[in-house]
């Protein structure tokens, strides 16, 4: 059994960049253990800043952040990050890319081989473990990137518009797969997106954000059992959720 998810929170947090731009304004949000939450909003609304705060890549100008990445030293295996670009090392094979987080934690290639192989099989890249990133399609690169995030069995998974650069078909398939991987592990997942449909399909809870300065304008629970079947997309319930999110998003701008 994988370790359970972690709860994280922002308490009245503001972030002002060195350029003077107020990226995030007095934002409060908390994510429960094992929850799947989306941050939905236009570009420049501070969605990515929230993820960077929770991963410790950015620090708050005021307010407080509660996240595992900020505590303690030594190797980090609790928090994983998936970027919009696959962000693979072009000089390393798929296997070596997925090995990276464990390698940085001091684990040898031989000792992680079974784990890496298992995760590659799960994301559908079993035959590609010796391939180089340049030999993979966009969707496969993103699968490798997600495999790298999952290999440490993280308790918090942060995803920054990971499917934004993919085609519609690949995006829907990866979305369904992601829910499946999440259901098996129940790591707390925060998914940043600007797609209403993606947020509505994937999340248990959606925060709608607005720009200039970035802040949360609306919070919406989607009380539909999770993980969801792709058929959920065809229900009137899904359409109602999309309509409401769309209205809130419009209102926010």
């Amino acid at each position, binding site marked *: 059994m994988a370790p359970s998810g972690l709860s994280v929170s922002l308490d009245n947090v503001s972030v002002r960049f060195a350029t003077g731009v107020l990226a995030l304004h007095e934002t409060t949000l908390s994510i429960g253990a094992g929850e799947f939450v989306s941050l939905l909003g236009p570009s420049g609304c501070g969605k990515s800043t929230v993820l960077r705060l929770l*991963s*410790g*890549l950015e620090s708050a100008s005021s307010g407080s952040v509660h996240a595992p*990445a900020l505590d303690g*030293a*030594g*190797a*980090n295996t609790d*928090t*994983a*990050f998936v*970027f919009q*670009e696959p*962000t693979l*090392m*072009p*000089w*390393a094979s798929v296997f070596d890319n997925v090995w*990276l*987080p464990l*390698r*940085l*934690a001091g684990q040898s290639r031989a000792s992680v081989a079974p784990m890496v192989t298992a995760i590659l099989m799960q994301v559908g890249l079993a035959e590609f473990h010796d391939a*180089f*990133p*340049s030999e993979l399609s966009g969707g496969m690169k993103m699968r490798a990137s997600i495999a790298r995030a999952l290999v440490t069995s993280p308790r918090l998974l942060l995803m920054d518009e990971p499917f934004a650069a993919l085609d519609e078909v690949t995006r829907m398939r990866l979305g369904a797969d992601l829910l499946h991987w999440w259901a098996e592990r129940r790591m707390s997942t925060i998914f940043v997106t600007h797609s209403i449909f993606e947020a509505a399909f994937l999340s248990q809870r959606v925060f709608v954000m607005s720009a200039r300065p970035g802040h949360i304008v609306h919070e919406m629970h989607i009380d539909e059992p999770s993980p969801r079947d792709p058929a959920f997309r065809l229900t009137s319930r899904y359409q109602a959720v999309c309509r409401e999110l769309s209205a809130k998003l419009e209102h926010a701008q």
Partner: protein
Amino acid sequence: MSRRLLPAATLLGLLCLWELVVRGAQLPAYTLPAPSLVAKTLWNNFPSLAASWWFTLKITVGALTLACTGGVLIAAAFALFPTLEVALLPVAVILQVTPIVAIAPLILIYVDSTTAALLLCAWIVAFFPILANTLVGLRAADRNLTDLFRLYRATSTQRLRLLLTPTALPYFLAGLKIAGGLSLIGSVTAEMVAGAAGRQTGLASRILEASFRTETPKMFAALSLLVFTGVIIFLLSNALSRRLLGRWHASEQY
């Protein structure tokens, strides 16, 4: 196949043309010797030319090795301590822009050993492209990958070994291709300036010596060895680049 055949055929064609022109116009050997005569001269003088060749080769390879080590170490120091770069880059630029023929006489005065002076001259010419390229490469690490290494709390050694070195490698190899040719140019130029001052002499001194005696075929023979050396250095650095980058870097995937 035609990638190799075509350049070889072109070269052979040019040599034949050269031979025909010399024979047709009955040019005297002291003006322009035919390739066949150059080859014969090379064969007859090979023992003495080979000794000079070996000398030039030592200087060139030595300077290139020092340029690689020096260039990479200085680039690493600049990348680690930006203040150092601000302070020292002007010096590197001055060394780079000053024509080596102009400072070689000075270096020959200040440095006792001719060999060391020649090495220094060739090094000055060759190290800058390695320094400049490696420096760019060390700063070219992908932003997100850098964040990822931070997130996983990579140590600075891990960052250097697993992120910065592979990122900088293609840049370094591009610098090496330039520096390879430059180290040969540097060592020949410096030796031209040094003249026959040293007890040991390289190919450049042999060219000068032959020119004083109007032994044009011998000049060409020595020159052909220099060309051969340059081509070998070029091919070796290309092969190294292909071997190290072939599978993943766009520059080697044509």
